[in-house]
């Protein structure tokens, strides 16, 4: 029942496959491509032409604003707004493989050189040095052969691309714009690739304790040191052949700088600009700030600089931003889970009366925002919100008065443990309360026993009783640290970052483009790592953990957490 016409080609396929398996590393750095010289393209200034080409590639829109028109599978018409070139070839143009279908690279560097079946990623210079004689599967594309491919699916060697590749109906000027964009896409390595080294940086904002800094820096530096030891084996015989050259050619040493910020957040962008100008980084790894990550997030968007898994529970929440990959939406996601859980209980007759009492802090506001926006998305009416001044605990009398007046079914108490004494007000009625595990921190299990049956906790991590066996792995990177602090989860999150980065570097191979780093993470399989139940990825998915449990605190002086929900994702 194989759907693919691969049988006649099996021997060549397996030979290629075995070659790749033996190499255990896929690709090779592409040489500089041949971008178009300055001037005009299709009668347009170069910058304008590039912007229009990018819109065609990413959004599937013609310069006229109309969708690009194409056909797949022989006779299925597709509008560019349904899916575009970048849906499959990805933003950097290095392609993808998924579901048994390989989407070939379409970036400028790769289009400008011939393609080979064996060791396809070696550069022409490397092939000459290695005296490889095998013929090219196709020659380098000219603009004419590339246009022919885009229109017919047939490459210059006469080979027909898979039927899932759209055959585009493009006018000559529009085709010129798209080809010009492809010629300039991922041509030269991004900043931060310096000789044999890939330079990274990590940002530490003011106000982070020395212990927390070390909880991130020690595992990061240990990983970098171990990675850099690997090249010591390149003199071995196994690296001397063609495959070994391909593998070692994809290897780069890593360097990690620490960018320490100072002063108020509004001064950080200028400091970050100065750091980046002084020591260009390929990407930011982790990073840690006590407050909102948004200033650093916005800098990364502006500088087109990837930032991988900062240690923050206050990320910027966006459906469209590209450059920062987070573990989760943090506090926002807990508020989101409360909304989803309550809505699930209520359906189909939503009559629940809900109040939000919100601590006037970034954390409280993020929780409230997550609830508010998700509640609205679920079609529910807005709920009253009361802002509680930061540093002023919620008074028992105030909560009693509020409950007596409003008679809510549920009150969302987005405050810390300072509200515990006021919770006694709950025992006078049937109102249930929601609190955030992150906001309560280590005080979670000190929740007053008389109200435990009326209080639900949004808990964004794996159940504590199941966590130990996953977190233990993080200790493998802790040399130099006495012990891991399970409450901050900084070293475990850094461990998870390292695992994802390690895979991404292998998958990126020697195609050192910043967008390609993010593309490769987007194509990773789901990961089961410390802290979060599951980290999942996909092109453009920027929050890897997407759910949350609802818990209650069990009885007794050393209570367990009792899981009251499935992993809430809808």
């Amino acid at each position, binding site marked *: *029942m*194989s*759907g*693919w*016409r*691969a049988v006649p*080609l*099996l021997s*060549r*396929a397996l030979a*290629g*496959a075995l070659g*790749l398996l033996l190499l255990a590393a*896929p*690709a090779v750095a592409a040489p500089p491509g041949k971008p178009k010289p300055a001037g005009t393209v299709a009668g347009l200034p170069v910058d304008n032409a590039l912007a229009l080409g990018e819109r065609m590639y990413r959004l599937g829109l013609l310069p006229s604003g109309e969708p690009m028109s194409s056909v797949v*599978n*022989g*006779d*299925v*018409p*597709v*509008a560019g*707004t*349904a*899916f575009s070139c970048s*849906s*499959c070839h*990805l933003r950097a143009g290095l392609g993808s*493989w*998924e*579901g*048994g*279908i*390989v989407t*070939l*690279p379409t970036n400028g560097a790769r289009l400008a050189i011939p393609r080979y*079946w064996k060791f*396809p990623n070696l550069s022409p210079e490397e092939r000459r040095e290695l005296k490889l004689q095998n013929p090219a*599967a196709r020659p380098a594309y000219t603009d004419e052969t590339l246009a022919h491919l885009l229109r017919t699916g047939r*490459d210059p060697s006469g080979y*027909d691309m*898979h*039927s*899932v590749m759209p055959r585009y109906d493009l006018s000559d000027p529009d085709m010129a714009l798209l080809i010009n964009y492809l010629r300039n896409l991922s041509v030269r390595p991004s900043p931060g690739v310096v000789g044999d080294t890939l330079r990274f940086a990590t940002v530490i904002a003011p106000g982070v304790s020395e212990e927390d800094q070390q909880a991130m820096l020690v595992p990061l530096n240990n990983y970098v040191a171990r990675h850099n030891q690997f090249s010591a084996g390149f003199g071995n015989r196994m690296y001397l052949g063609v495959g070994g050259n391909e593998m070692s050619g994809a290897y780069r040493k890593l360097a990690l700088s620490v960018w320490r910020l100072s002063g108020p957040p509004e001064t950080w962008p200028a400091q970050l600009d100065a750091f980046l100008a002084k020591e260009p980084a390929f990407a930011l790894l982790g990073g840690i700030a006590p407050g909102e990550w948004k200033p650093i997030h916005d800098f990364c968007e502006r500088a087109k600089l990837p930032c991988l898994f900062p240690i923050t529970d206050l990320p910027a929440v966006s459906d469209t931003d590209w450059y920062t990959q987070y573990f989760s939406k943090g506090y926002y996601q807990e508020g989101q889970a409360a909304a989803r859980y309550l809505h699930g209980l209520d359906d*189909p007759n939503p009559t629940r009366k809900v109040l939000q009492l919100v601590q006037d802090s970034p954390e409280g506001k993020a929780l409230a925002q997550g609830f508010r926006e998700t509640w609205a998305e679920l*079609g529910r009416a807005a709920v009253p919100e009361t802002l509680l001044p930061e540093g002023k605990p919620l008074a028992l009398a105030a909560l009693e008065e509020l409950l007596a007046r409003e008679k809510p079914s549920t009150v969302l108490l987005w405050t810390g443990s300072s509200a515990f004494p006021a919770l006694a007000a709950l025992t006078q009625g049937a109102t249930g309360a929601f609190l955030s595990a992150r906001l309560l921190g280590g005080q979670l299990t000190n929740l007053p026993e008389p109200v435990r049956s009326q209080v639900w906790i949004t808990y964004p991590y794996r159940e504590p009783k199941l966590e130990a066996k996953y977190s233990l792995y993080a200790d493998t990177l802790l040399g130099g640290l006495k012990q891991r602090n399970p409450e901050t989860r900084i070293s475990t999150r850094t461990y998870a970052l390292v695992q994802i980065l390690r895979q991404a570097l292998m998958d990126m191979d020697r195609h050192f483009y910043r967008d390609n780093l993010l593309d490769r993470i987007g*194509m990773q*399989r*789901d990961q089961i790592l410390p802290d979060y139940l*599951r980290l*999942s990825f*996909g*092109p*453009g*998915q920027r929050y890897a953990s*997407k*759910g949350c449990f609802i818990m209650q605190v069990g009885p007794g002086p050393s209570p367990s957490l009792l899981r009251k929900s*499935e992993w809430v*994702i*809808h």
Partner: protein
Amino acid sequence: MRRNPWATLLTTASLWLSGSGFLAAQAPPPYSRTLETYTVPEVVLVNQDGAKVKLKTLLDSGEPVILDFIFGTCTTICPVLSAGYANLQTKLAATPSKVHLVSVSIDPENDTPKVMRDYLKRYRAKPGWDFLTGRREDIDKVMNAFNAYIPNKMSHYPLTLIRDPKTGKWIRIYGMMSSSEFVAECRKAGIL
């Protein structure tokens, strides 16, 4: 239905060939077609409007139904399967036939009702095409029930299932279909 071991070998080999781009350069592959009997599991899923949907009620209603497995950020198969659905809806608009198109998410963590609504909008889906998500355990049950289980969404494969309303049997199509082939299969199933 048992999968052909040679097909499994070739699929695996194709994954190894990521560096060579070998398969992407092939001619359009033919699809395979078998007749199957499936028992729809008793699960409640969520559609693009956030409404709960009993899958068994939906699929066993006696109305013509077509089912596939997709996810919102898929890079290859799903966009093309969905283009096929969209095109079929356009063709069906000119006929009295009311075929219910159902897509079940294999990335339930990311495919929220909002994501699914946006996805259907991109394909200009008309009423009669539902995109369903749900608890991971329930999605696994659905995939298992249709012999479509994959442990990870990146390993999925193109599958279209057409339910014959008269016999209750399912036509299982493995591979990609052209528009004319899709219509022909619908006719064979008696739903056009």
